[in-house]
């Protein structure tokens, strides 16, 4: 019952600021919620269609810069700028998606990484507009507000955005559109032969995902106040998002949120305990590798499977191979037989 679980989440978000012992913990909470929104937004593409994007960090950065530039250059009010920025990024996602989604698999990942790198170059070089490596200072949306209060407001804003993203995911999941997307994830050719306009579906969901990602990035810009291309367009952001979503489980509504909480909290915790060392990268890489090799479906399905197995052993004969693997196997056998 996703609704009941949603209620639990709402209560947890509502309670957290009053439970947080100091502003630092509250600010960490904002960061974790930011990750949760990003991972959920990523999952619109990753979870539904199975296309793994390592470039969502760039979309968030774009949302942040668009918000900041609209405020500083176009004098829009902060939150109007946020919405306009999300619309702009969604519009930009159309040509990006057009290049990236026409081809499958490898090329999509290449394009997603290239997106991060090219935007980094552009935002560093085009300093007359973006501020270049000096960064961009985003005016405070609530001038004069003291920092702890500022954190609290943004914690709730992020909470609202997360719930909106989850609700959208849930609605899509139940729709025929969502069914078509899942079919794409399972077998794109087959889905197409059954009448699903796969390219249009992929593009649409990519745009939706980009819009949510941009909203999270824009909110971050308003909260954080300083944008620097090196950190807004970092490949690392995308890899954390992928790790979170995969770890939590991409097929589950709350998987990415769970992943974001686990990884996000761990990141903050290790930073406080051990400082900020390059070993973070090693750990991230190691975890990502382990998840890909041994738990490609994430923690939630693995745990459920484990529980199921412990509960009723007679089920253990269920085959663990996919039809695609079977097909591969059969192809081999057939060719061997034909030779």
């Amino acid at each position, binding site marked *: 019952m996703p609704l009941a679980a949603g209620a639990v989440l709402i209560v947890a978000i509502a309670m957290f600021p009053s439970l947080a012992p100091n502003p630092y913990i509250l600010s960490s909470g904002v960061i974790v919620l930011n990750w949760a929104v990003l991972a959920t937004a990523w999952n619109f593409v990753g979870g539904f269609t199975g296309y793994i994007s390592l470039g969502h960090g760039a979309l968030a950065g774009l949302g942040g810069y668009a918000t900041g530039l609209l405020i500083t250059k176009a004098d829009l009010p902060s939150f109007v700028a946020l919405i306009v920025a999300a619309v702009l990024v969604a519009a930009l996602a159309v040509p990006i998606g057009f290049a990236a989604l026409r081809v499958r698999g490898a090329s999509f990942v290449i394009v997603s990484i290239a997106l991060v790198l090219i935007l980094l170059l552009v935002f560093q070089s085009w300093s007359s507009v973006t501020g270049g490596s000096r960064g961009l200072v985003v005016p405070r949306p609530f001038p004069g507000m003291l920092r702890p209060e500022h954190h609290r407001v943004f914690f709730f804003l992020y909470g609202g955005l997360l719930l909106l993203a989850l609700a959208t995911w849930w*609605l*899509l999941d*139940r*729709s*025929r*559109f*969502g*069914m*078509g997307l*899942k*079919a794409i994830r*399972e*077998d794109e*050719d*087959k*889905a*197409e*032969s*059954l*009448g*699903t*306009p*796969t*390219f*249009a*579906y992929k593009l*649409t969901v990519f745009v939706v995902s980009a819009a949510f990602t941009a909203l999270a990035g824009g909110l971050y810009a308003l909260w954080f106040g300083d944008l620097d291309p090196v950190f807004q367009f970092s490949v690392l952001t995308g890899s954390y998002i992928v790790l979170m979503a995969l770890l939590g489980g991409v*097929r589950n509504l709350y998987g990415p949120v769970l992943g974001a909480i686990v990884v996000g909290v761990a990141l903050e915790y290790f930073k406080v305990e051990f400082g900020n060392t390059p070993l973070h990268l090693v750990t991230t890489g190691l975890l990502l590798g382990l998840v890909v090799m041994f738990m490609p479906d994430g923690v939630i399905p693995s745990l459920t499977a484990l529980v199921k197995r412990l509960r009723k052993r007679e089920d253990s004969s*269920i*085959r663990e*191979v*996919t*039809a*695609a693997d*079977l*097909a591969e196997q*059969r*192809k081999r056998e057939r060719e061997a037989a*034909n030779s």
Partner: protein
Amino acid sequence: MTLKTTGLRKAFGGVVAIDGADVAFQPGKVNALIGPNGSGKTTFFNCVTGMIKPDEGSVHFGDRDLTGRAPHVIARAGVGRTFQLCRTFPRMTAIENVLSAVRPGGLLHGLRSAHRKTEIDRAHHWLTRLGIEHLAGAEARTMSWGQQKLLELAGVLMAEPKTILLDEPAGGVNPALLDRIGTLVRELNAEGRTFVIVEHNMDLVMSISDHIVVFDRGRPIAAGPPAEIRADERVLGAYLGV
């Protein structure tokens, strides 16, 4: 509506897989496409259903030119197909597998719930008809090979195609199921659906088809009713490699 190709040609590098094929399938009948291994039958299927773009020639369904169109456009035009190695959506339940074949309208249409009663009823109807209703809630990957073949067919039927292309329906199935598939094809054909079947099992082909097209080296070399084909020496020659 007649499904027909004119001068269809497809080469992979230097290998010509289909070489100027002119084929017309008889509407309302069970058509069979036979030929030795490597004669280009599956490539032909892929060209017709848009999985591969032909180099030359055209594909028509009735008056409609489907040459080089995207697979989903061809599917929506009323040409459904199964795959040689039986492809289902492994992590989706049987009922979801069938429901994904609902012909989606525009994008807004797609936002409607996938679980509307009329669609679910239709899906259950096809699962029942194919005798796998009891597996409705099971994920496809947990089903047996034969069950998956039936599930795949159920999905195709859900899209309400006028013509159905089956790529080796008898591949890897046991004799009991083979009989069932044969009966099903005849029944579904009797309800007005055209079939085109690529098959190696000659018993099945001869027993259920009305019209047979023989492929060799990428083009049809003979066509006609089973009795005629059985007597055709060119066919024998093609199979024996004479």
